[in-house]
């Protein structure tokens, strides 16, 4: 449990609690899983956005960004104004962040986390600035923390009382080195962030929805992130691909043409809303993603061009063409499903899916969408012609678990026409149905 709302807290749920423990206290607790992938993606977007302030940005995962600002202070007319600009920009995009400034990357990271708003200007101030940090809260390895606390160390400054050799011997040589780096006594080089040349992001929704309002909200979040990404790089986009993933693993894809290169989230959202409103969604949406694979300078020139796709084989080409013309969901494969009930023994699957080989009794090639009631004429089963049973009963009793259970005796039957039918008698009612036709 990382965070929880007030209602959960009232029931006794607390951050740090185990999931199961929280569930006992609040049976109806709705739990959203952390998505480290998305967190990292957002961090990268923020890094791209930050490039507007300084050319040197470093990622400090899981949730830190390091901006090298010494060189650009003059350009932004001082630290105070720069911090204000950054803070404003964050607020505009709806992001919450904690900031601190210090001469060493580690010190800046720790202070932002534990003492936000702290500013340490000179390396000499580092020792004092870090002295009172509680050790328990520092993002150090668990074993290191455990050992230091077992020795009675509570604050950063306490560690100075311990001999450096002794520390290295007990906690490894990296530990005193890290302290030195934090205190600015040793260099702490970092790899600068290299922004990618395309933007691709997918957000999984907590609850599937087909409400345009709700989808627009998600789209807005994506566009905001895209805009920030573009802003940092001074770029724009002219075309966007929007993908909506449905519950049944089908997709709806929409291409948004923006007319001219832009990085205005509002403009993107307006066009998107329009398209969404006209769109008929086949099913609620579980995840939404955008892809901007061609980035433009704002003067309209395409930044990158990707190569053509590989040559496809004939069948794949046909399939692709059919799908392009008829829509993806119009072209599908049929695969077998291991289930005794005929109507559950197959399903649609994306084109080209492999089907398991199953051994069952003889089955008709054509299964009616719905079993059709059969009448009796003169004591004979009748379907346009009197029917004669050809086989003994194949009894199928299965499927009680999903509310769609069957208890039937299946027979092959033949009429005067020579046509063969697959019929069954419902065991609960003794009534007869036609379920399939043999070729």
């Amino acid at each position, binding site marked *: 449990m990382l965070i929880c709302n007030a209602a959960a807290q009232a*029931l*006794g749920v607390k951050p740090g609690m185990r*999931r*199961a423990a929280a*569930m*006992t*206290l609040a*049976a*109806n607790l709705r739990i959203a899983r952390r998505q480290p992938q998305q967190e990292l993606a957002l961090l990268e977007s923020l890094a791209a956005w930050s490039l507007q302030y300084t050319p040197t940005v470093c990622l400090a995962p899981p949730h830190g960004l390091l901006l090298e600002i010494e060189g650009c202070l003059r350009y932004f007319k001082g630290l105070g104004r720069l911090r204000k600009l950054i803070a404003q920009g964050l607020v505009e995009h709806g992001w919450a962040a904690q900031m601190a400034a210090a001469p060493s990357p580690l010190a800046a990271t720790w202070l932002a986390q534990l003492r936000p708003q702290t500013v340490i200007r000179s390396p000499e101030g580092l020792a004092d600035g870090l002295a*009172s940090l*509680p050790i328990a809260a520092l993002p150090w390895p668990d074993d290191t923390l455990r*050992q230091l606390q*077992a*020795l*009675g*160390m*509570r*604050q950063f400054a*306490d560690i100075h*009382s*311990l*001999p450096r*050799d*002794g520390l290295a*011997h*007990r906690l490894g040589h990296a530990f005193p080195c890290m302290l030195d780096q934090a205190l600015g006594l040793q260099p702490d080089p970092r790899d600068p962030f290299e922004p990618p040349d395309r933007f691709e992001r997918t957000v999984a929704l907590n609850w599937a929805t087909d409400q345009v309002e709700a989808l627009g909200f998600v789209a807005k979040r994506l566009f905001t992130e895209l805009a920030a990404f573009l802003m940092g790089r001074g770029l724009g986009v002219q075309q966007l691909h929007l993908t909506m993933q449905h519950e049944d693993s089908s997709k709806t894809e929409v291409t948004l043409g923006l007319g001219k290169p832009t990085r205005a989230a509002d403009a993107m959202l307006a066009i998107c809303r329009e398209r969404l409103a006209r769109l008929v969604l086949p099913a609620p949406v579980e995840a939404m993603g955008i892809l901007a694979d061609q980035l433009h300078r704002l003067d309209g020139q395409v930044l990158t061009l990707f190569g053509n796709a590989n040559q496809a084989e004939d069948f794949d080409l046909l399939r692709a063409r059919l799908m392009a013309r008829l829509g993806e969901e119009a072209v599908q494969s049929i695969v077998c*499903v*291991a*289930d*005794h009930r005929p109507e559950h023994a197959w399903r649609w699957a994306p084109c080209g899916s492999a089907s398991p080989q*199953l*051994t*069952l*009794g*003889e089955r008709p090639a054509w299964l009616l969408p719905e079993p059709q009631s059969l009448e009796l004429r003169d004591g004979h089963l009748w379907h346009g012609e009197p029917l004669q049973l050809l*086989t*003994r*009963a*194949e*009894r*199928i*009793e*299965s499927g*009680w*678990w*999903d*509310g769609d259970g069957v208890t039937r*005796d*299946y027979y092959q039957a033949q009429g005067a026409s020579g046509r063969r039918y697959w019929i069954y008698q419902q065991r609960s009612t003794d009534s007869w149905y036609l379920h399939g036709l043999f070729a």
Partner: protein
Amino acid sequence: MPAADQATYAELHCLSCFSFQRGASHADELVERAAKLGYQALAITDECSLAGIVRAHLAAQKHGLQLIVGSELTLDDGLRLVLLAPDREAYGDLSQLITLGRRNANKGSYQLDRAAVARHAGRLLALWLPPALPDTADGLWLGQHFPDRAWLAVELFQEADDGNRLSALLQLGQQCGLPCVASGDVHMHVRSRRALQDVMTAIRLGRPVAECGLALFPNGERHLRSPWALAHIYPRALLAETVRIAQRCGQFLADLGYEYPAELVPEGATPASHLCTLTEIGLNQRYPAGAPEKVRRQIAHELALITRLRYESFFLTVHDIVAYARSQKILCQGRGSAANSAVCFALGITEVDPDRSNLLFERFLSQERQEPPDIDVDFEHDRREEVIQYIYKRYGRERAALAATVITYRPRSALRDVGRALGFDEEQLDQISKTLAWWDSRAELPKRLQEAGFDPESRSVQLLLRLAQGLMRFPRHLSQHVGGFVISHSPLARLVPIENAAMPDRTVIQWDKDDLDAMGLLKVDVLALGMLSAIRRTLALVSAIRQQPLMRMADIPAEDPQVYEMIGHADTVGLFQIESRAQMSMLPRLKPKTFYDLVIEVAIVRPGPIQGGMVHPYLRRRQGLEPVDYPSEAVKKTLERTLGVPIFQEQVMQLAIDAADFTPGEADQLRRSMGSWRRTGELADYQARLVTGMLANGYTQEFADRLCKQIEGFSEYGFPESHAASFALLVYVSGWLKRHEPAAFTCALLNSLPMGFYSASQLIQDAKRHGIVVHPVDVQRSDWDCTLEDEQRPQHALRLGLRLISGLGRGVGERIAAHRPAAGYDSLVQLQRLAGLDKRSLGILADADALASLAGNRRQARWQVGGLQLKQDLVGMAAKAEAAITLPLPSLGQQVLEDYRSQGLTLRAHPLSLLRPHLSRNRLLSAAELRACQHGQPARACGIVVGRQRPGTASGVTFVTLEDETGNTNVIVWQDLGERQRKELLGARLLAVYGVVQREGEVVHLLAKRLADKSELLGTLSVESRDFH
């Protein structure tokens, strides 16, 4: 269909629920159904198992159906067959073959090859179960090894190609020269078990039923089908063949020919004469001055009965085991009235003097029953294994094995397994299990599910409930009985299959205790009892302190008033049986004064007497508040010792005999039906007879009704006087040791943990309250066990042992003690070298503050341990010493918390004493202050929650025990408060209770009105406020 032919069918392939996770019907359901359908016979052919045979046999006798014993086997090359036993010898072969297969494999599975089957094929009948694409060679192989005794089983289930299958199999039979026979692969007695059977398949495969696909049967045909339906499916000849096979099978289960082991009788003697001799020898030792006449008469009566029933060997077997234990100085004690007979007293099986008790020997031995007597023998819990190994050695693994315990589905496990099969996720199932923690009755299930956030009306929850209820009481697997040994004269494996238990080197037979009873097999219960270990250790310590020869239980003076004085004040922490909270609140009211009072005390604080309403009448009569009267002399004789209130099972039996003209055998059946009336309802018949009998003998309806009600109360919890007497002896002995040798007693208890009701911390606090000096663990002084140190005080001081440090290996602890120089270790380095310690163990010792005398407080010790060079070569011996440093001193609160973390106890200060100023400001009283309060006075208390109990007898009440630096406070939480403040009740480690004092004499409870969780106060102990922002 010709009606006359319809009855001619015998089912030869049928699984019961003892084919675990396959068979969806109990043996008795199958038998009853088969009888109803007019089957000629039914074979129970569980997969490589005879575990269900006894139940089936009893049911078959009841319903007058021929039962055939068999087993379905799948060999390692895939060949499937059913073997049937036509006679006793073939049965022995089958049992041996199953034993072989089971012993070849891990618990729960088996492995057999063709060679093994061929070796046991001489007398058995075989049905071949051919696969979809059969190999003629398999049929020929069977025909060759089972000449004229092999068939091809034709099993048709109304599937698509039944017609083709039938003709193919008939042809195959001709090719192989095997006659064909119809069989049904029965998995359930009726079609409606289909869903449950599918669930079992899903459980077996470990995936949801919806994902089991074609592993499920396509329909419910694998049930006992009516002969009419079968006649539509099979040719008549195939059905007729089943009956011919059944006719070849005889009935032999009723007389399997069990014999007691014979080697215990010396040459020239008979079992009877040898038992007489041993009894006489024992009697002379017990009564050097000659046995009292009463005892002699009793012995003569008992020996006559034993001889008549031919149970001599049984008593000789128990005597042999007990004699072995005694020779190894392993303390033991028999239980049960057969155990507490005069013969057993003479044989040394029990210490309960027949001169002192009035026990009904008939309870375990009766002429009318064919069942053997039952003697439980308790041994020291940590030395019982020696006794078990002795039995294996003495009789061999072929002739001695543990009885099985059938582990059946309980509500919780049933819900979990069915839930998984229905695709509920683990989280949901955890939740369900959690809510079930407090519940016992099935009717409450829907309510509990609702509380857990489930909609009881929803389809899936309905299914879950229905199927889970269906699964309950089905067996899941066989486990080993706690100690019931079966010993036989000839190899056991020809009597019942033996299989591997989960424990290495343990084998169990496939029958449980009830099966053994029904089949008349001897069972000796070899049980483990922690208190016996503690007593033996105390006696050894006391003998050492007093420098006298080893003290025995028999040397402890009887009827010491100081012991009763102590017990009367409920000063009984650590005592056997009477240390529980319920017992403690009864003791000051009952005020035991004699040994027999202890017998009553042990028996009366139990669900049986409580539910039967015996407790209060007895207490009132004892306190003289109510007259004691008897409707007749006979009743007076039986009930006088318990003031007219029946407390023991034996009394109920005796009353039935005296007042309602039951025979002793009938009285015993009454006792058995008391144990199971909820399940079988048999008791009602006996009650009616009891009432009629008593009215006929001139007793009043009221007296008869009262007795009946009391019998119901006993139901499953009744306690026999004979057990109570054995237990009371241990109560007295432990009480005497606590009263006179508290240091040794505590020391022995600590060394015998885990056992009893209390933790090490609670035992040590109690010892300190009794003035015992306790020293902490110290590598310079402590052994692995706790020890006593002579400091010229009335009682020795107690030195805690290294065993109390959690996480420290026993080997490590013992090395530290063994390699310690006489003057102690001179340095950490020396300790490390001599005892060969690794950093982890040293770290654990530092955490335990056990290095204090070598390296200073925990923090200093940890720093020094961290600095040790462990992996140096010889040259580097002189590692350069580190400069000493000074680390911040830990606060008392931190020390206390770390003590708890490492050992679960502290000798420094109780955490509550550190919080006391804060608590006092909030007017939260200590246990001692509370004890001084008046009845009805409002009061609030606060303590660490050391116990939560919800006895089934006290509808919905939870008893909470709070501990502080002055003792324990007993809190009563009524159901409605418990429901309202469930979070506090279940979650708080430190609990404040606002309530009202309830006082009855010395017994004080706090009746809760409101609870408050104060656990966060414990966290503040680790904080040094000066530097906390």
